[in-house]
């Protein structure tokens, strides 16, 4: 009986050693893969960080202003050129847009 038990324990131990070795090896490989993925994530985050910063630079107000002036011929908009919908004339109104106070008022913004 003791011999059977001993044999069983030794067999169990052998199997356990094999299983542990297998798990250990899989863990080591997973760790290497994890490190690789971590490094890749860090690289991608770094690249994204640079790209976001570049975007902030190229989409900054100074650049947009310069491009709007040089490419689109836009100038600094006085307040009343940015009017509200309520201030726009309705279809059938007697006063056309060119005679509305809005258009006249925008010319009143001090030039300097």
């Amino acid at each position, binding site marked *: 009986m*003791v011999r059977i038990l*001993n044999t069983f*324990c030794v067999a169990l*131990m052998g199997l*356990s050693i094999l299983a542990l070795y297998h798990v250990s090896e899989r863990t080591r490989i997973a760790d290497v893969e994890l490190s690789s993925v*971590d490094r890749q994530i*860090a690289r991608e*985050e*770094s690249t994204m*960080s*640079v790209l*976001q*910063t*570049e975007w*902030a*630079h190229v989409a*900054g*107000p*100074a650049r947009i*202003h310069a491009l709007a002036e040089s490419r689109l011929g836009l100038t*600094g*908009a*006085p*307040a*009343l050129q*940015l*009017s*509200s919908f309520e*201030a726009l004339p309705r279809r059938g109104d007697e006063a056309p847009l060119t005679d509305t*106070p*809005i258009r*006249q*008022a*925008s010319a*009143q*913004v*001090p030039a*300097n």
Partner: protein
Amino acid sequence: MTQGPTIFQRRIVIGAVLCVMAFALVGVRLIDVTLFRHGEAGAVVGPSLFARADIVDRNGDLLARDLPVMDLYARPHALDDKDGAARDLARVTGADYRRLKGAFANAKDPYVLVARQLTPDVQDRVMHLGLPGIEFEPNTKRYYPDGRATAQLLGVTDPDGNGQSGLEGGLDVQLRTAPGVPVQLSIDMRVQYILGNEVEAARQTFHAVKAGGVVMDVNTGEIIAMVSYPDFDPNYRHMIGDDSDHNIMAADRYELGSVFKVLSFALAMEDHTTTPDEVFSIGNGYRIGKFTIHEAEHMPATYTAREILAHSSNIGTAQIALRSGGVRQRAFLDSLGLLRILHTELSEYARPLFPAAAHWGTIETATIGFGHGISVAPLSYIAAAATVVNGGRKVVPTFLKRDADGRGEQILKPQTSLAMRELLRYVVTNGTGRKADIPGYDVGGKTGSAEKPIPNGHGYQPHVLVTSFFAAFPIEAPRYVVFVLLDTPHGTKETGGIALAGSTAAPLAGRVISRIAPILGVPQKPVAPAHEST
């Protein structure tokens, strides 16, 4: 008779028990890890890439970020041609050739720092040199996408990532404590750009030595924009021409002149020592002891209090200030925070200059009434003036986003604040601030033209001015105040050679408001045809 287990059998049993216990322990741990702790794997966070947190504006737009760069080191003993390597590395990286040559020749120095914070293109050029003994160490460099537009406000860091000036210095601990959590400012980058664009254009037009501007929310105390010129490029940090890293709006103190009349009138209205319609004698001079107060320009014999503010009469304001008295005036200015250092999130601040209580006599009360004899930081003045128009409650400026009402102690009665708003509107429609009157928005404000003191402290420099304009809009229920300042402006052909605030600072404030009000969502008023024809 049964025989007991031999010593070997007992040892085997003990060994087996120990093995079983060890396996049981491993089994329990496996069950614990697989069943109860599997969620923790996702919570493992690697070290942060960067040392300082991002800075973003109130809309989430990026203002400052650490970018990955490389520091370059060399091992001189591995270099065959030390002199040639020093020359090549100096050419490619911009490092000092003589320093490198000396360091490479020094046998005691096994590891020499060649250059810091190399960008990827410079790194590529170094690699193409093909030199042995070259090593790159990862590092970070603080980058500011908007460059000069935020330079004076954000400040800079040193090469080791420590905040040196501006908000980088003032928020250094917060930025370093949680590198992954962006710090959101109250600044609106669109307003910041417009303010800078207009202030710098005015500085060029009027050939002013310095200029600055601030936009502030009167209810929350949030600074929406702040600029100071001359400025500098925070990404290169080499001062070119008249570049300066000095923020005049926070770190300098000025005798601001007539914009202080707003405070004298607020005190008089609060204490009912005068009414807007009371008539005062103006004349050619107002004598106090051995001193005589004069006007900057000719004025009629009498003015109502309303006209005194509208036309910025020193003599009239001196009389009104004297009715309040020196003790009350001092206590009022102190309650507005003008006699103390204003501490904000900026690392810069200025100590106000004013007479000691024992020397705050009649003449001091009169001159401080119209803004002479007291020097404060422009930012301190803006906070005090915002208190006058926001319903009378003290507000402290902040550069961090704050949605809640930031108003505190009630300094003035709401009725006083309302009366002051009406007076400030009158200044813009009928007084020295007419050039700040823009269609679509009711602006209230006050001009200030102060002669600059002689640096040795004895007297003032004739015709050398600091001009400023304080504006609130929409004046019927102010949401924002704008303050602009020009240090030593010169008149132009368009202004008839006049450099006073009504011709220099007031139109500047008007242009700023006309551009930022639609962005800030301030509702427009319909424009009456009668108004347009003026």
